[in-house]
């Protein structure tokens, strides 16, 4: 079968990858229908995200059940499913406190598309426990967004928004991650949302989506506003979500917090960069800086939210600049994303 893999020279298409086989009696072979390209895949491509050499990429996956092993009772051949990126052992300290991505026996060490073979392939083998059935009215492309949706929901676990009516929320970065967060928060009724987006072209794109209660600004405009309000302790945001990973943006994000505000680091920062911060300010104003990685136990919740958004007509991707590609065209998909021609790419390996 065809599969896109990671090698020390970068990504490559293997035309003769073996079709996967059952690994145990709870294995399911999936015919992959849609796999999303994620910012993390770019980090992997650049060698900045630790992966297993030779692994098949792709962790935002949906497909149809192709074959089931003898112990599988919950799924049938042909069933439409979304695939959870990873799972914990449920029996260690980290799993017991809902931090199973740090499980020593599972978690990040079992991630599809990173450690285990993922969805940039015609077929993939998964455990039945990683599957979630999806309804017929949810397209495969949309269903593949379950993984990013559940990681987005986790941001609200680590940095909760206290009051939808009054809390002031800032999202840094209007790429697909920032837009998805914006869309979701707007949908659940958060009333004061600001989004920073550098590119004027993208600001226009977002304005055309006609979100209510959303202000879109350039990074320079917001920084001016911050400087103008330097004596005003009530100015600022209660929740800042950084989707950029950019050092300067993060350092500014800390400054834009108002008392008791929380900064969630959602975009992946560069490894060697340190951010300098005034700790007295952090302490007396009870500010919080938290990483927001992933939480594997909420996949079903992510699927449910996706279905709700889809049925409310809130997942109209064409407005975002979205395109489908074949496996053979994976390089073009990555390039179109890099050139900002599109905001989201789906690979459809079965076409």
């Amino acid at each position, binding site marked *: 079968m065809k599969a896109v893999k990671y090698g020390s020279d970068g990504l490559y298409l293997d035309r003769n990858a073996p079709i996967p086989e059952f690994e145990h009696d709870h294995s399911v072979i999936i015919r992959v229908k849609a796999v999303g390209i994620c910012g993390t895949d770019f980090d992997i491509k650049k060698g900045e995200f630790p992966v297993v050499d030779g692994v098949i990429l792709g962790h935002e996956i949906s497909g149809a059940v192709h074959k089931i092993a003898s112990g599988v009772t919950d799924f049938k051949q042909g069933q439409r499913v979304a695939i959870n990126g990873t799972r914990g052992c449920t029996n260690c300290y980290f799993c017991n*406190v809902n931090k199973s991505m740090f499980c020593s026996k599972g978690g990040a060490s079992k991630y599809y598309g990173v450690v285990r073979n993922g969805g940039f392939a015609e077929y993939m083998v998964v455990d039945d426990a990683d599957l979630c059935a999806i309804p017929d009215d949810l397209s495969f492309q949309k269903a593949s967004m379950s993984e990013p949706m559940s990681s987005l929901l986790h941001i609200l676990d680590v940095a909760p928004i206290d009051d939808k009516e009054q809390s002031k929320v800032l999202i840094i970065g209007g790429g697909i991650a920032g837009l998805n967060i914006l869309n979701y928060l707007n949908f659940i009724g958060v009333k004061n949302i600001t989004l920073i987006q550098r590119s004027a072209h993208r600001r226009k794109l977002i304005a055309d989506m006609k979100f209510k209660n959303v202000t879109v600004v350039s990074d320079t405009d917001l920084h001016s506003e911050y400087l103008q309000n330097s004596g005003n302790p009530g100015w600022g945001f209660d929740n800042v979500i950084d989707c950029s990973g950019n050092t300067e943006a993060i350092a500014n994000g800390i400054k834009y917090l108002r008392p008791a505000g929380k900064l969630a680091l959602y975009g992946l920062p560069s490894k060697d960069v340190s951010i300098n911060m005034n700790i007295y300010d952090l302490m007396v104003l*009870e500010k919080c800086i938290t990483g927001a990685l992933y939480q594997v136990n909420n996949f079903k919740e992510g699927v449910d939210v996706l279905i709700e958004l889809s049925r409310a007509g809130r997942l109209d991707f064409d407005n975002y600049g979205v395109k489908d590609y074949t496996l053979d065209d994976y390089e073009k998909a990555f390039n179109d994303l890099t050139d900002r021609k599109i905001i989201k790419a789906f690979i459809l390996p079965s076409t």
Partner: protein
Amino acid sequence: MKAVRVTSDGLHLDRNAQIPEFEHEHSVIIKVAVAGICGTDINIKNGKGRCKDGAIIGHETSGIVHAVASGVQIFKPGQRVAIKGTRGCGNCYFCSVRRSMYCKNRRGIIYYGTTRNGGMAEFMVVDDADTYLIPDDLSFQGASMTEPMSSLIRSAYIASIEDKDNSKVLVIGGGIAGLNLVNYLDFIGVKHITLTQRSENRRKLIANLKFKNVTVLSDTELHSDYLQNIGDQHWGFDNIIDCTGNSEAIENGIKYLRPAGKFVMYGVPSKDFSININAFDFMFREKQISGALVQPNDFEDALNVIIKLSRAGRLNFHNYGAKEYNLEDFETAFSDLESRKIIKAFILP
């Protein structure tokens, strides 16, 4: 009356201070029994804290109701009470999300002993809404500890200890704050508590207090342990609360977090102190760093905790190295604290 005031020259004993009068119909005049000295008071004395010129210092107060104004319905002369340091308006965004220390309308940081006259005096006037009855079996010293206990409880709340049986908790600094915190965590059943304390004398003192689930180490011992275990992703602590405000302690302390760990700054650092954090490490290992100040609405919970600790025999301050002083001896009290002869000073006006 006698009172200790703050001026630009430091603290002074005023022997002819006016006995306070009612400020409005909800005023209560307290005959002060105990005023505790806090680290913040030491900063104020040394010109580093925020205080109104001429204000009477002291915000850890307990005493006896002396007189009540016409609108006060709950309190009567002779009742034993503890006094809360501050109160929000109850009507702004910050109050509505339970952070009234940032209240827009009252500037909710502690006001008694800074912008309003405080407890190092024979009498003090307070609002009835800041007054709380205490049971007869709670000492005035214990009651005066409610204010600091409420901020310690908040630090524990922000540290958000996930699992009392299994989470590994580190308290940095075994002064009165660290000790009170460890006492509280041990009492509520946290099973893995480590406390670092530089001074060997103090480590001995703490060992004599016979906590069940507390390991006491020097800061150098813990740092060696850290260095020996670099590379082991499961070494480290899930919840770390710094009670020192010391830059080196904080910078090292952050390294001791294990994945998904939370670092809470409780001790107040110097104003110009900055640290470098590795954002990748924080994001990829989902670490957290937060400040913990004090939340006025925690006072009631703190009073309940103090009462329970007291009834469990866990508030024996003299075992901690605490001492009582008259108002006239306030200077000795401050210097004994600053020279570390004692760990806690109570002024008994």
